[in-house]
């Protein structure tokens, strides 16, 4: 059995929070891909992972959200680094941070985000190209020693399916898959029109051990989605909302949401049936610490 899935059966697990906004706070500039910092500034990443672990996160995510070869080619201005090496390195740094903590009680999730390209008719991405890119990334993350895979912020269920299948080709580790949804008049949907019903049916059938949603929505907006997804599936559920909507002040982004309020909302998701919670854009170790305190009081 896998330690992560065992732990998930025993208690509500806490995932970490935002990475991009943390990197911006310490100097990530325009035109720099966050993933490049695994090579340029491993010390900074080690520090961020450690801060999340100290705040009480049970699961931390590698800094590899945009680390498929397809996305890296678009996001790295000065030439993309070697995809496999970058993913292995990112996993190693996170693994090093985990080394300080008790083995088997904290877990490392290999983070996989969308390629940024679209299948037809929206774009020209082919199923093979997507599968190959995800396989390359997943194989490197596996080599780097992750405990599970976290496929997240997926807006097209077809692309999520390719990522799941690619991971399955190179690893037996558990797969968590989160879609990113907006709230429309008729309910929650991805921009492609994929519904929670479709997510529950397809992602689980494809072999995701845990499904859920992240990004796009604030914590308050995501509470009802947790209840809705609970009514649709027996699969464990993970939710990672944003820290409110960003506001601009003096040329800098400010997320005004209070960590305590965010943590209260996450607890409402747990009451609604979430088995794991965490944060997305704008969340920091303070948000995770506030949530940890509430989970420990449960």
């Amino acid at each position, binding site marked *: 059995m896998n330690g992560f899935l065992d732990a998930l059966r025993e208690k509500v697990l806490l995932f970490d929070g935002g990475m991009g906004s943390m990197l911006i706070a310490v100097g990530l500039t325009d035109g720099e891909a966050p993933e490049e910092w695994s090579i340029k500034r491993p010390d900074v990443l080690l520090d961020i992972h450690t801060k999340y672990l100290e705040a009480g996160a049970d699961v931390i995510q590698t800094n590899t959200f945009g680390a498929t070869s397809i996305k890296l080619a678009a996001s790295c201005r000065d030439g993309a680094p070697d995809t496999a090496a970058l993913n292995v390195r990112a996993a190693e740094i996170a693994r090093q941070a985990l080394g300080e903590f008790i083995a088997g009680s904290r877990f490392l999730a290999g983070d996989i985000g969308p390629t940024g390209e679209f299948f037809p008719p929206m774009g020209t991405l082919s199923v093979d190209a997507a599968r190959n890119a995800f396989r390359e990334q997943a194989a490197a993350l596996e080599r780097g020693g992750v405990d599970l895979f976290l496929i997240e912020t997926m807006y097209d269920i077809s692309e999520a399916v390719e990522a799941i299948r690619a991971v399955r080709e190179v690893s037996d580790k558990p797969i968590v898959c989160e879609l990113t949804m907006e709230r429309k008049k*008729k309910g929650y949907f991805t*921009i492609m029109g994929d519904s929670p019903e479709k997510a529950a049916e397809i992602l689980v059938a494809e072999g995701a051990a845990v499904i859920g949603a992240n990004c796009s929505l604030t914590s308050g907006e995501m509470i009802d989605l947790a209840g809705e997804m609970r009514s649709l599936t027996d699969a464990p559920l993970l939710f990672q909302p944003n820290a409110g909507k960003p506001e*601009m002040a003096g040329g800098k982004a400010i997320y005004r949401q209070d960590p305590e309020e965010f943590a209260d909302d996450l607890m409402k998701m747990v009451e609604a049936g979430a088995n794991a919670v965490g944060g997305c854009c704008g969340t920091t170790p303070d948000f995770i610490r506030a949530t940890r305190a509430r989970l420990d009081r449960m």
Partner: protein
Amino acid sequence: MKEHLGSCRQAIIDGDAEKSEELAKLTLEKGMPVLEVIDRGFVEGIREVGRLWEEGELFLPELVIGADAMKKAMAVLRPALESVEGGQDRLGHVVIGTIEGDIHDIGKTLVATMLAANGFEVTDLGADVPVAKFVETAAEKGADWIAISALLTTTMPGQKRVIERLEAKSLRGDVKVMVGGAPCSEEWASEIGADGYAGDAVAAVALVKGQTG
């Protein structure tokens, strides 16, 4: 005629590119008034697609398919439109792109597609577009609007720099500027002195229509 307009409208709503092209050709063959067929037929269709998208009844694939059908029809009708009295003047030119440092393409492409579908001339510069490129292209094309997308709070200041550069080059009076993208807002648009903010592709079309020509 009324029936023809209804068919044109419906072909766009159905996202039927082949049918849309056929109907556009029929319009020319039968010598029907081109402007009226566009305005009360095809444009009504794409407007309905946009409305249904805003309502959450349709999603991105349907919107793109509808816009593609619209483009097919417009490609047939545009040459005829240019010889029509008043036809040429109605069409504005929009230079659009995602600002430098930002590779988010979806929203921008959608706005470009909808503008083109509504008959505007569109120069799409893609993503990660340098400030100077927006300004140079707009000057070169004699554009009426520059539309700048920014999806990151770190890249939003680039929108302001485009406006500053237009001012420095004394071009600000010639071209209007609209901003869009998740972190942008009306407040941000007015703070940086833009002419408008569009929250989505439908709003962008309305904005350009309201203030061009």
